[in-house]
């Protein structure tokens, strides 16, 4: 590194790590472009840190502070909130320790790639396992128009590849500003790669599909309190049903071929009498309804999406597979992510939290879904930015799978997203209404749908190769520039 880079005291390192934590949090919640800078202060703080404990602490602080910004989940309990912050902290401990172990041991090109490879690993780890709680850079930039060309990588690599680009940007900035001449040269190469990715994405955006279908999302705009009241008071329940019935009937009078409710829009026993259930399409209506219901049968409860043809004929259903731990323990999980065949196409419903993870949408499209529907109820997040955060993840799902995606939120946000990540219309929080638009059905499968997390495999192998080379060099006793001149 640049020999003029000043030696840092532990206090300065902690201050830089705190800045990085704040920038990560800001990127996730308030302003996505902050992701391009987020870990730059951390990389500086880590540079020259000899102590493993200090290194781990710096990384942990970054992740913990970033995790605290997801405060909207406090409505679901203190344990989830603090657990999430601790979880992201643990990921960044891994980031910091791997960086310390591998940076500066081989070639400047490896140094440039390392932050991106390590971030890719930690972000992938956040999507796997029973405690997985994703937090992705691609979601931070999904709604930034100037960075949208980068999203064109997602159909090939999954959203993870785009997150790698963001992490490369951080590395480019760090090595470009603080690096010695060899590192700055490779930072320029990295900048060139980023520009090339942008230009390619701009010149060759993903295809949109060619089978149009008119869709309508029905947003009741109710707070959770209204459902609590409906639980106790039949007239309050009638209000909820009447809201969805009225809006649905308006939708049936449009040209929509598919009308979609949000998650558990109605919790009344509708499927006992589908021919006469309020809001279900009658004979003579043209649209298929995908209804979000809380369905009870045989002593079990299901978070269910039901496809209903005009006249009340049930075409099929999907039960939520990935339920929210603790909160949805009373639900019986669905068996698989399988689309529903309807005259409006092969529909791929994904319910709420399932849209935050890449596996549900990939499985749906892999099993033939031509259109994705995210049915969500984010009323519990109130007016916090979490719903925007969730909507951005839906953008990533649309681009990864090459599918149009209609996100219908019970309390918002309802929006139609195309396979390029562009949003067509929006209903805001707690705003009752209809969102109408034209989507297009697609039957092809992107590389990511077919090959899955191959990008992680490539990055993982690269990281292993760097690790093996580092180990071999250490055993030979030749370790140039081990910790640099700026020891803690």
């Amino acid at each position, binding site marked *: 590194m640049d020999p003029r880079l000043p030696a840092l005291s532990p206090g300065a390192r902690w201050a830089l790590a705190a*800045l990085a934590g704040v920038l990560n949090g800001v990127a996730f919640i308030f302003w996505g472009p902050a992701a391009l800078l987020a870990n730059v202060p951390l990389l500086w703080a880590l540079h020259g840190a000899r102590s493993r404990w200090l290194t781990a602490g710096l990384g942990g602080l970054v992740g913990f502070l970033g995790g605290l910004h997801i405060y909207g989940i406090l409505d679901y309990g203190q344990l989830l909130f603090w657990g999430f912050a601790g979880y992201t902290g643990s990921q960044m401990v891994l980031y910091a320790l791997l960086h310390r172990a591998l940076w500066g041991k081989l070639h400047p090109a490896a140094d440039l790639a390392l932050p991106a490879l390590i971030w890719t690993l930690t972000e992938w780890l956040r999507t796997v396992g029973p405690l997985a709680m994703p937090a992705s850079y691609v979601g931070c930039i999904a709604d930034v128009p100037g960075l949208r060309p980068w999203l064109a990588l997602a159909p090939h690599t999954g959203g993870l590849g785009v997150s790698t680009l963001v992490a490369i940007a951080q590395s480019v900035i760090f090595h470009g500003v603080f690096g010695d001449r060899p590192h700055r040269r490779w930072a320029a190469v990295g900048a060139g790669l980023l520009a090339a990715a942008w230009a390619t994405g701009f010149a060759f955006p993903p295809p949109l599909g060619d089978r149009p279908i008119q869709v309508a999302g029905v947003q009741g705009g*109710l707070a959770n309190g209204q459902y609590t009241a409906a639980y106790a008071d039949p007239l309050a329940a009638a209000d909820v049903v009447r809201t969805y019935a009225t809006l649905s009937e308006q939708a049936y009078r449009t040209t929509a071929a598919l009308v979609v409710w949000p998650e558990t829009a109605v919790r009344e026993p509708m499927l006992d009498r589908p021919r006469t259930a309020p809001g279900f399409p009658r004979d003579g209506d043209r649209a298929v309804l995908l209804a979000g219901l809380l369905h009870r049968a045989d002593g079990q409860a299901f978070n269910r999406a039901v496809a209903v043809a005009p006249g009340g004929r049930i075409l099929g259903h999907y039960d939520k597979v990935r339920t929210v731990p603790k909160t949805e323990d009373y639900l019986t999980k669905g068996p698989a992510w399988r689309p529903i065949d309807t005259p409006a196409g092969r529909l791929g419903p994904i319910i709420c939290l399932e849209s935050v993870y890449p596996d549900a949408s990939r499985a749906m499209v892999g099993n033939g879904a031509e259109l994705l529907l995210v049915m969500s109820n984010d009323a519990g997040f*109130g007016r916090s930015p979490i719903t925007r955060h969730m909507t951005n993840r839906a953008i990533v799902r649309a681009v990864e799978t090459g599918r149009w995606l209609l996100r219908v939120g019970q309390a918002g946000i309802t929006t139609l997203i195309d396979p390029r990540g562009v949003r067509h219309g929006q209903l805001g929080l707690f705003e009752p209404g209809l969102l109408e638009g034209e989507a297009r059905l697609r039957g092809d499968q992107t590389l990511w749908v077919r090959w899955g997390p191959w990008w992680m495999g490539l990055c993982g192998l690269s990281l292993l190769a760097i690790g093996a080379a580092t180990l071999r060099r250490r055993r030979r006793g030749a370790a140039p520039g081990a910790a640099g001149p700026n020891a803690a």
Partner: protein
Amino acid sequence: MSPSGWIQLALWPLAIGYAGWLVPHAWHELNDEVVVQGLFRKYWPPYPLPDGGHVIDPRPVDLAHELRVRFRPAGPERSAPSTADDVEAWRGHLAVLGVATRNTRARAPLTHPRLLWHAGQPRLVLGTLDRDYVALVPGHGVCLLPEVAPTDGPALDLDAPLVTRWTPVFRP
């Protein structure tokens, strides 16, 4: 001052200032009661009652209107008796509506919807939800109360079934 000193001088006040902004901002967002303008009416956020229980659906309550809508939708729309705590007047009101009643005490075990009085004001206990009682309380709205009545006194049981959880609201 060393570079480390300058870094700390710049960043720690920034971090503290940011935390000073973020914490109240998050607190406000998390505790901001959502008032929802629904399709048909406004919904206010729930709140606790000073004597115990919660108002789960705050709204104006016209008991005479509620009785008709809930128990005799085809019945005539009538104003409430002019004397709010006149049990006989309410019995007559319900009779004109076509709802049979039976004398009881406010704190008797609940087997039917019950019109009772507290502090001179009528309230309608509709049924139960788990261990709470669902009641319409004028001046508040639909409430969950820990006991059927805070004080004992004369009451009227209505000839109708109790409301329980998810009582279906529509019929084919």
